């Protein structure tokens, strides 16, 4: 069960793909961090990750966690974004035979899952195939 507060804390990264960057050593983090693990710097600048990339690997989930039962079967992939970040997310609105390593994808805003009939709706990023 996702609590509203946890979902709320992750809104900047889930809705807007907000990342951050160490002002000293320049390393970028997604999801954003509070402290740079390399130089322990606490001054991190806000940035964003790219919205397009290509599939590095993928799998098809047929036995999903309970929140995703209605969506199965669905594809999950690791995508290398154009700025080098590697992001794991569902790849939706596609035929599985069209999935290929190297296939270009882009991010779309989708509902990730809902908390049953009466809970909150959780939104975020997924990938769709790009021409």
């Amino acid at each position, binding site marked *: 069960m996702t609590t509203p507060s946890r979902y709320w804390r992750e809104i900047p990264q889930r809705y807007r793909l907000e990342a951050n960057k160490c002002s000293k050593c320049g390393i970028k983090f997604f999801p954003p961090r509070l402290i740079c693990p390399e130089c322990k710097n606490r001054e991190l600048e806000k940035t964003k990750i790219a919205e397009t990339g290509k599939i590095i690997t993928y799998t098809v989930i047929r036995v999903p966690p309970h929140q995703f039962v209605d969506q199965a079967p669905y594809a999950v992939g690791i995508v290398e974004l154009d700025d080098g970040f590697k992001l794991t997310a569902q790849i939706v609105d596609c035929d599985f035979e069209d999935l290929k390593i190297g296939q270009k994808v882009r991010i779309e805003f989708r*509902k990730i899952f809902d908390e049953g009939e009466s809970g909150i*709706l959780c*939104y975020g990023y997924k990938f769709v195939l790009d021409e």
Partner: protein
Amino acid sequence: MEGIIGYGAYIPRNRIKVEEIAKVWGADASSYKRGLMLEEKSVPSPDQDTITMSVEAAKNALRRAGIDPVDIGAVYVGSESHPYAVKPSGTVLAEALGATPEVHTADFEFACKAGTEGMFVALSLVKAGEIKYGLAVGADTSQGAPGDALEYSAAAGAAAFIFGQKNIIARTLDTYSYMTDTPDFWRREYQYYPQHGGRFTGDPAYFSHTKGAAKGIMKKAGMKPVDFDYVIFHQPNGKFPFRVGKMLGFNEKQIEPGWLVNRLGNTYSGSSPLGLTATLDISNPGDRILIVSYGSGAGSDAFIFEVTERIDEVRDMAPKTRDLLDKDKNYLEYGEYAKFRQKIRKAN
């Protein structure tokens, strides 16, 4: 002078054909196709709703507007299918775009007219100088009861418009609204599907208000049908826009570019706004466009826009509406459609 500085559309890729629905209910597909002038309709994926489509349409509008979302002072979402009964769609949209926290946000609901309501208010706030930019979205994942005539047309899509005073794509020449209390279509609290008054939705409802708003704005602006290059009417089915256009003295060439309903269905709050995006896609500087929405309950909002030279710079910065309608379609069988639209009763 104020007007549209960015516009964007979103249409889901799933479609279902009239034949596929008619087959399940033992209905005559050809008479529905002829009666409604409709071939197929769009269907949202299970992870799409008014909020997700609003975000995608608004992002396309931002691409054309080329502004910093922080400068958007108002975010309005018009829909009759807001995902929450209580909690705004507009806050999710504003947050996803990066327009928060200094922004006024509201959800509108007025059957199929909610999109143009948001446009009217956003435009008015810009005109009053209260905000720099205002965003209005018309979006719906509309519901039709299984087997009802509405099931053949109730579709999904979104259109977004950003209004401002500089870098205008289409300046507003006039606005006008025409309302009465007419109970032609409604949905009570806790009901899944709307009810409608059958033929009562025609003459005293759609035609009366659409004509009232169109005649009213033309009189106010001192213009005639011949003064417009394009006109967009609300599209509950294929026939109504052409019929009301003919009654008012418009010809088919003025209507056709924004007439999407035969392969899109009725996207409710997105219907006439999506027609406007498709018309802007093919318009040229100097073109004059009349848009008249209609929402049951009942009323119409009308706008007259004049396209500027900036249209040529921004047209290709985001997907065109006809491309979203025609490319990369995925046809569903009725069973998949029923699952996608949560029409199947499951165990808790």
